[in-house]
């Protein structure tokens, strides 16, 4: 029996198990379908709009009313009026509004008399995205309101119209967002969250597939089918799951970059390669875990702990350099971390292979991990000498 025959046998056997136990299908295909639908529909707007901004207008003048109208007219903000600050503060603490603008009494009068009234705004920074966007929105509107007043003053002083803009705004910034020009929050998160979920699902399902043989004592049956060749047994399973999860991953990448048109500077084929490597590397991690701890339940618990933490340690939200020094090195033990680096090169900068080959090598290095534990897993499969539950 050649090695390929053995692998063929294992694959046929695994497909029979799949047909008998719906949990495999639910745990892989159904879970990934749900996650893809969730992250793409939940964040479909890209940038939140109409976040509630409280306004306590103690002045109620034409200037303050105009300010409220302008703020309300921005895409981001929606003004909610409060009569007292205490009510607004309660809703700020309760997270029902993102921020409070406090317009003091005599605001318009003081502006006209050049007494420089103070405008205060409060932000709830615990609701991060809403809070920081409201901060930016209000700051812009305050500057525009102040600018409008200054413009009137300058006009009254007789400054020619052609010079006014230069006087009001001597310096300006031209902002270029490389890799995500529309600041699409949905694209930013979905790009990494969905592959992150793929890494999690690959690890959990493969650990379960290998661990279930131990748990139900079917591992000897598996080994007999392949002449006691643990390499063939594991390779067979990995081959089937590689095909399955790569297909799932590729479908997701095509949805992300072709159907949703998320920004991608490089070519799709490069991302497909990265996705394939992510799947293979994650499988290798799964084999390592079940090989080190050949008890289905323990291995699953470790796999769960490892993969949930992986979403944070990848560093696409809080960058790795902001983590404690001792943790930075540990991030390298996640395939997703290298996939993210690869995505940054391909998706954001559109670099060639020369820039991202280190990530390919890193992901390929993961493939050596199973060889460390396969003999041990083979012994566990033969003797079944670990506790089963």
């Amino acid at each position, binding site marked *: 029996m050649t090695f390929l025959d053995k692998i063929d046998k294992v694959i046929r056997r695994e497909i029979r198990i799949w047909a008998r136990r719906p*949990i495999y299908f639910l745990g892989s295909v159904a879970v990934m379908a*749900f996650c893809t639908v969730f992250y793409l529909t*939940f964040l479909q707007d890209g940038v939140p709009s109409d976040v509630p901004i409280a306004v306590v207008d103690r002045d109620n003048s034409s200037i303050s009313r105009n300010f409220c109208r302008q703020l309300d007219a921005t895409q981001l903000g929606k003004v909610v009026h409060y009569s007292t600050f205490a009510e607004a503060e309660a809703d700020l603490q309760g997270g029902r509004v993102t921020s409070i603008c406090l317009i003091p009494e005599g605001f318009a009068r003081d502006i006209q008399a050049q007494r420089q009234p103070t405008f205060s*705004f409060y932000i709830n920074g615990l609701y991060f995205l809403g809070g920081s966007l409201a901060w930016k929105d209000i700051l812009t509107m305050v500057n525009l309101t102040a600018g409008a007043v200054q413009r009137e003053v300058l006009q009254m002083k007789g400054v020619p119209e052609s010079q006014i803009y230069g006087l009001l705004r001597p310096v300006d910034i031209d*902002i270029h967002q490389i890799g995500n020009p529309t600041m699409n929050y949905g694209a930013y998160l979905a790009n990494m*969250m969905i592959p992150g979920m793929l890494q999690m699902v690959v690890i959990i399902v493969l650990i379960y597939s290998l661990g279930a043989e131990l748990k139900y004592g079917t591992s000897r049956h598996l080994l007999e089918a392949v002449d006691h060749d643990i390499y063939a047994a594991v390779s067979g399973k990995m081959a089937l799951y590689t095909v399955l999860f790569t297909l799932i991953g590729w479908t997701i990448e095509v949805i992300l970059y072709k159907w949703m048109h998320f920004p991608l500077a490089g070519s799709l084929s490069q991302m497909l390669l990265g996705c394939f490597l992510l799947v293979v590397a994650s499988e290798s991690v799964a084999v390592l875990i079940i090989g080190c701890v050949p008890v289905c339940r*323990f291995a699953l618990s470790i796999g769960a702990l490892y993969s949930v933490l992986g979403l944070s340690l990848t560093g*696409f939200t809080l960058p790795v350099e902001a983590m404690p020094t001792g943790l930075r090195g540990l991030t390298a033990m996640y395939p997703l971390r290298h996939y993210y680096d690869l995505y940054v090169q391909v998706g954001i*900068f559109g670099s060639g292979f020369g820039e991202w080959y280190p990530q390919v090598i890193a992901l390929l290095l993961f493939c050596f991990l199973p060889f460390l534990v396969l003999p041990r897993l083979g012994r566990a499969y033969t003797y079944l000498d670990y506790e089963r539950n």
Partner: protein
Amino acid sequence: MKGIEYAKQWVRDALGIFNLELRNILHDGGVMIIFVVAGFLYPILYNFVYRNGILEDTPIAVVDDAACSDTRRMIREMDATREINIAYRCTDMNEARTLLQQRKVNGIVYFPSDFGDRLAAKETATFSIYADMSSFLYYKNLLMGSEFVMLHEINSIKVERLSLDGLTDQEADATVNTVRYEDINPYNRAFSYGIFLISAILMLIIQQVMFYGMGMSVGTMREENRSFASLPDTYSGRGVGRVVLGRGAVYWLLFMTIGIYVGCIVPAMFGFPQRGSFWDILLLLALFVTVCVFFSMTWTTLVTRRESAFLLFLFMSPVLVFLTGFSWPTTAFPAFWKYFSYLFPSTFGCQAFINLNTAGAPLAVVAPQLRALCIQGGVYYILACVAVYVENFALKNKARGDRGLVEVRAEGATSSR
């Protein structure tokens, strides 16, 4: 008299079930590992990862084609901000772009050659920033740092020009700064990523640990052909309520311990803001843990094997983080996901904890969340009872069916003989 007898019997039965469940949990190494390791370790791990939580001194490359005193001053000012660190000064954009691509810098500031001339001509001088969007925090830092500098520059340039036009300093200041503003961010002063994330996920950890642990325990019973719902025959009472409450009390006590650790001790250990009153938080925990118990009891009914909880529901943890609404604002939720989020106690528990503990809100402010938790608790209690009832019903039918099958087989055996 009958009422008292019934109450006594009720308490005896509930205590019996309590003891049984407690013994089950304590004897199950796997469940204990989840409760102890995950419940105690996870909050520490997350606090450790997000301990700094603030990205400072993002490295930037500068391309200064204007090379005048104004741009040199602005570059110095940018370097002095907390957000930006001028790491490289490049001679042209190609060099800066290479550095960006090699990820030695996370942004570029470019001053065009006419920048100084335009300032001198009293026109608007524009400079460009290029932000690497691979993490939005890079962009935020670059934007905030350069915007501070720009606003500062605008003010001083305007005052300087107006002074040249013959205004006194005070007049010029009053003309330029028609409105003064102050921005106050009382609960998270530095926009720390850690403070915002940790306060949101602490409650979620309680719910998820309980769910996976209970799922494993229920799955084990199923595998061993016992059922979590069946009453031992020795007990004369057969009420559904005492099964649910007796079993629930075990988890409730266990998770109040874990809850106090997660909600009160862990924040103190890491110097995390604790602005709420201890008793308010204890009240929230008591309510939240109760709802979590009924929630887990309801949904773990679907678990048939020891490991299924991980395979089928692990992916929900990150999803639930988003559904708490602390990152993507609740008002921007698509309608379907908004109602979907009402299924989970974590949605309201996390919001209430953020508001009470980190924002220091009084109890009245979180009344809507507490009310929602009460409703959830009621609904999930009823569902948990229904689950036990249905399970018992199914068990009895199955027992009857099995007996029938045995009789049929026995008959078949005799007739063939």
